[in-house]
């Protein structure tokens, strides 16, 4: 039973990853793409980690998966802010030079 719930979460996570990829290819400009990518992907990773944690059958491994997710989310959030800031600055400089 728990195994099936775990699979449900994993499949949900894969669907989120898929939507993130489609968004990265289809969305019109840089900031919308970044928005889709950072949220959908981290949520997908969270669902996959949650599903695996349910299937792992050990509290230690589940906590480790949770920790991995939290650290990746923290790192990814800071990097997205960095990318967004430099992207905005680049666009402004291009506007100034034209």
């Amino acid at each position, binding site marked *: 039973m728990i*195994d099936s719930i775990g*699979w449900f979460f*994993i*499949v949900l*996570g*894969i669907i989120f*990853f*898929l939507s*993130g*990829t489609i968004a*990265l*290819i289809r969305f019109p400009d*840089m900031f919308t*793409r*970044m928005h889709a*990518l*950072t949220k959908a*992907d*981290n949520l*997908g*990773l969270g669902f*996959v*980690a949650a599903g*695996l944690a349910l*299937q*792992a059958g050990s509290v230690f*491994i589940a906590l*480790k*998966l949770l920790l*991995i997710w939290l*650290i*990746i989310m923290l*790192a*990814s959030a*800071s*990097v*997205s802010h*960095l*990318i967004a800031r*430099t*992207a905005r*600055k*680049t666009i402004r*400089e291009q506007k100034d030079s034209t």
Partner: protein
Amino acid sequence: MPDSHLFAALILLATVTAGLVRIFIGTGRVEWLLALQLLGTSAVAVVLLLAHGMQMPGLRDLALLIGLLASILAVAFVRYSGIDSNQAQDRR
């Protein structure tokens, strides 16, 4: 059961590969960074699935490492690639 985990990892890998198309149709360096972010996050998920599917607990540490390295790579890229020209001048 382990086989289905490998299959899930394979689907995820195919998804990432499709995402890398963005590099070819992209317009600039920021696109590369976004594709790198996608690659990093998805690689973590793939390696976690493999860790469970192949019964190799050590791969979980590898997943953590991949995620952190992807972020550090993005930071280094922003800092030293000349996207951020103001900071590059400060450095000199």
